[in-house]
């Protein structure tokens, strides 16, 4: 590796812009500048030094701030495109064909194109994830590329800097102190200490520094982001993340999906509404117009040790809880959320076995629609057999009744009625407002009496082990951002020559206004010559030219 030898005798690694020891400009480009480039302290950065092998090229690509910004902008634009139309997961249809139909029905040709381009599910698309991943890689590489050299040079700062370094800072002062010239450095030191600077002095040179740790802010927040992204990626690892849902009817006890050995009983579902009238935009938008509270009162059970999986006979009560929105039931890292509800689902139907002509009743039977019995015994030895049950009757196909779902939305039954009059039995197909008698005219019928309904809660079961990681990532990020934003790194170099002339140079990474306030105080206390902002004078000149 080539070394760059500075006039002062210090050996600098290849790529160094400002000598690590004295601050003299080393590269030709740097020598031409009026104000030194103080980013990364002029140290050698890997990406700016090597560009030969493939690895160098990849490294340089990802470490570039320009590439990083481009990646941020691309991610931003892609994310915004995904908000033009609702994403697929907000549309309550199941199959791809239905989704496609939905987009073209509701949004016309634009929806068709949107769907065809995959923009309707853009956030789960591979290429979006690749973009995010590239941003993550860029954050890591850029941080390593710049963070370590920066740290090294901040750690090994020399107090005394070469005149060319001092002259090429943005804010400088040069001249004789107005008075007390022999005390100048003592006064400078004292004042800067008062202003909470760390002051180092070597012979006739002073380096005062404040808020150096803020330079580490960006690197800390990048670490936080990486931890956060890692946490997000852990969702894909089995065991870190459970996302299940269940429908639970009032009075029902069910095994909780994804939560081994636990059962949940819904004691009651409550929907409360405000009794006032919905107003204004709220009414127009129709979003949860009057809902005040959705709540499921539940009992959480656990199987006793050694029980067979799924066995629900011997359960231990763990706790009772009212699950509401914003108040999930939490247990052992699991959380159960109130997400959805369905009111007045059919629970049971009551029929009367009646003689068609005499209207004589042989007794009533109640069919539990989620768990119907096969046979119902009635008075006088009469009985009804349930030959078939279709919870969600959707019509006949090839003469066979069909059911669309397993939910009792539109129950239909095939009964066989055994009576003393017809001991061999009569068959009847009964659906809502429809009765068929396949074997010819029956003597008896199943007369509908009434129906009982109940409510259903839609619950979501989550288990997310990554939350603590995400939380830590978020906190590290916030600490880093605060470090970098709310503090700034200020440095003042002062040197007094033998003839009493004072050279001053000042640099800060941001907030020059406050820096100058410090300098005003310092100038005043140590009677220093007035400093000038070389950049400001440049702007003023420019402006005067423009005005002319």
């Amino acid at each position: 590796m080539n070394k760059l030898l500075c006039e002062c005798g210090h050996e600098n690694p290849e790529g160094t812009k400002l000598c690590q020891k004295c601050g003299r400009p080393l590269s030709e480009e740097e020598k031409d500048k009026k104000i030194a480039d103080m980013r990364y302290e002029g140290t050698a950065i890997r990406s700016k030094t090597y560009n030969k092998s493939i690895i160098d090229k990849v490294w340089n690509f990802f470490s570039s701030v320009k590439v990083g910004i481009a990646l941020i902008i691309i991610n931003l634009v892609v994310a915004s495109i995904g908000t033009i139309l609702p994403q697929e997961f907000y549309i309550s249809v199941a199959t791809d064909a239905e989704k496609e139909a939905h987009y073209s029905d509701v949004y016309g040709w634009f929806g068709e194109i949107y769907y065809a381009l995959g923009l309707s599910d853009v956030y789960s698309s591979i290429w979006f994830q690749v973009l995010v991943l590239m941003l993550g890689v860029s954050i890591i590489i850029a941080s390593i590329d710049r963070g370590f050299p920066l740290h090294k040079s901040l750690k090994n700062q020399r107090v005394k800097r070469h005149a060319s370094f001092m002259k090429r800072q943005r804010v400088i002062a040069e001249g004789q102190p107005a008075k007390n010239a022999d005390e100048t450095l003592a006064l400078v030191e004292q004042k800067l200490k008062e202003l909470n600077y760390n002051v180092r002095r070597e012979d006739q040179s002073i380096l005062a520094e404040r808020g150096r740790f803020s330079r580490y802010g960006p690197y800390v927040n990048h670490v936080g982001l990486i931890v956060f992204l890692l946490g997000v990626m852990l969702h894909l690892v089995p065991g870190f993340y459970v996302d299940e849902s269940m429908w639970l009817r009032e009075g029902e006890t069910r095994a909780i999906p994804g939560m081994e050995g636990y059962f949940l009983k819904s004691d009651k579902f409550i929907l409360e509404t405000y009794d006032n009238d919905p107003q204004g935009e709220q009414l127009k938008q129709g979003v949860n117009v009057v809902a005040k509270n959705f709540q499921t009162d539940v009992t959480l059970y656990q199987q006793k040790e050694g029980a067979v999986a799924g066995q629900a006979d011997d359960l231990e009560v763990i706790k009772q809880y009212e699950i509401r929105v914003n108040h999930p039931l939490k247990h052992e890292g699991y959380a159960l959320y109130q997400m959805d509800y369905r009111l007045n689902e059919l629970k049971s139907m009551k029929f009367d076995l009646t003689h068609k002509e005499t209207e004589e009743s042989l007794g009533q039977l109640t069919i539990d629609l989620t768990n119907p019995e096969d046979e119902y015994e009635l008075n006088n030895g009469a009985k009804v057999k349930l030959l078939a049950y279709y919870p969600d009757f959707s019509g006949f196909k090839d003469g066979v009744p069909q059911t669309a779902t397993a939910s009792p939305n539109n129950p239909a039954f095939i009964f066989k009625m055994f009576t003393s009059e017809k001991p061999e039995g009569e068959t009847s197909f009964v659906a809502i407002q429809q009765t068929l008698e396949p074997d010819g005219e029956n003597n008896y019928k199943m007369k509908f009496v009434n129906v009982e309904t109940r409510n259903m809660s839609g619950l979501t079961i989550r288990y997310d082990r990554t939350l603590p990681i995400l939380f830590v990532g978020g906190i590290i990020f916030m600490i880093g951002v605060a470090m970098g934003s709310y503090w700034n790194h200020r440095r003042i170099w002062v040197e007094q020559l033998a003839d009493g002339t004072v050279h001053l140079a000042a640099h800060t990474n941001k907030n020059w206004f406050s820096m100058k306030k410090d300098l005003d105080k310092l100038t005043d206390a140590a009677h220093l010559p007035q400093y000038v902002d070389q950049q400001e004078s440049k702007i003023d000149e420019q402006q005067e030219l423009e005005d002319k």
Partner: protein
Amino acid sequence: MSLIDISGNLLYIAFFCYLIGTFLFSGAIKEKNDTAASRAEKFGKVAIIVTIIGFISHVAYFITRWIYTGHAPVSNMFEFTTAFGMFIVLSFIVLYYMYKVAALGVVALPIALLIIAYAAMFPTEVSPLVPSLQSHWLTIHVITAALGQSILAISSVAGLVYLLKNVNTKVRSFESIAFEMVMFFGVLVIGFVVATSTFSAMNYEAKFEYVDTLDKVSEVTYTMPAIFGMNEYKELSEDKMTPIKAMPALIDARKLTTVFWSIIFGSALYLLIRLVFRRSVSSMLQPLVKRVNSQLMDEIAYRSVLIGFPVFTLGALIFAMIWAQVAWSRFWGWDPKEVWALITFLYYAAFLHLRLSKGWEGKKTAWLTVIGFLIIIFNLVVVNLVIAGLHSYA
């Protein structure tokens, strides 16, 4: 007078204080000769005092409404937008004491005024909270996010002052035209306010029946004469304007009509200004900032982003994620508002990185802050009102 009436009146007081404050601040920087210097200082002092009185009244509105409703008044469009205006004024007052630049007031206060006027166009009734909003996170998340956005908005105030001073309005260039467009956009907001208040003063109301995207028949009430009709509309009110053109179901013709009227009123207003003064709006305002230090403006713009960015991240992303985890079982769901909070975050992250590159100071920074403000306004207006999602309230 009930507490809610008192609250409403306090907001009026705040509004007028900011209005007076705007004129006083313009008086403070309009200085013709040296003897006027002390007079300018006096103007500045009175201006900031009036602004502070307005702000106190604004806070009092906030607190009395909070007491009346029993929850932080940030739960609908009216409440959120007035709170946003309040935090902009707060950020301005803090900034004024940091940098003592009166010119900032001439831009910041009108922006706050426009925002409050815009808020007042929404229903001001107290509405009860739906279950998902019944959480302390409503207070924590929304107030922090609004505060962060307002600090970021202040950066665009400094950016606008910078551009006002440094864009050469006498020459026709892409830049001067773009800047005049920004001014025009401001006039359009006034147009919206004028249009809305004019028609509501006339008690205009027209009812229509229409067929929505899912082929259901619904009813809609226009508060402005219908230019555009909803899909397969049928007039229910008599003697009201018949829409000129029917729109397909996908487009909310009622909102489109509002936008149309705002543009009509705003453009008319803009033309009137141009005809009366025979100058572009930007060149009219330019003398106000003649003595402003450009570099200081650049620094204020950058610094406001630095201060606002962490606050925004905390409020609009981190607190939002915590709440989403509690209420909806997931910390992130790609809801449009969530996405736009992320976009705002990414935008300002890009801004801060660009600032590292050489040359992205001065005018470039100023333009970036103005674009940032447009994103924030887009997030407030379009994402809440047009794009469907969990935040489409108001």
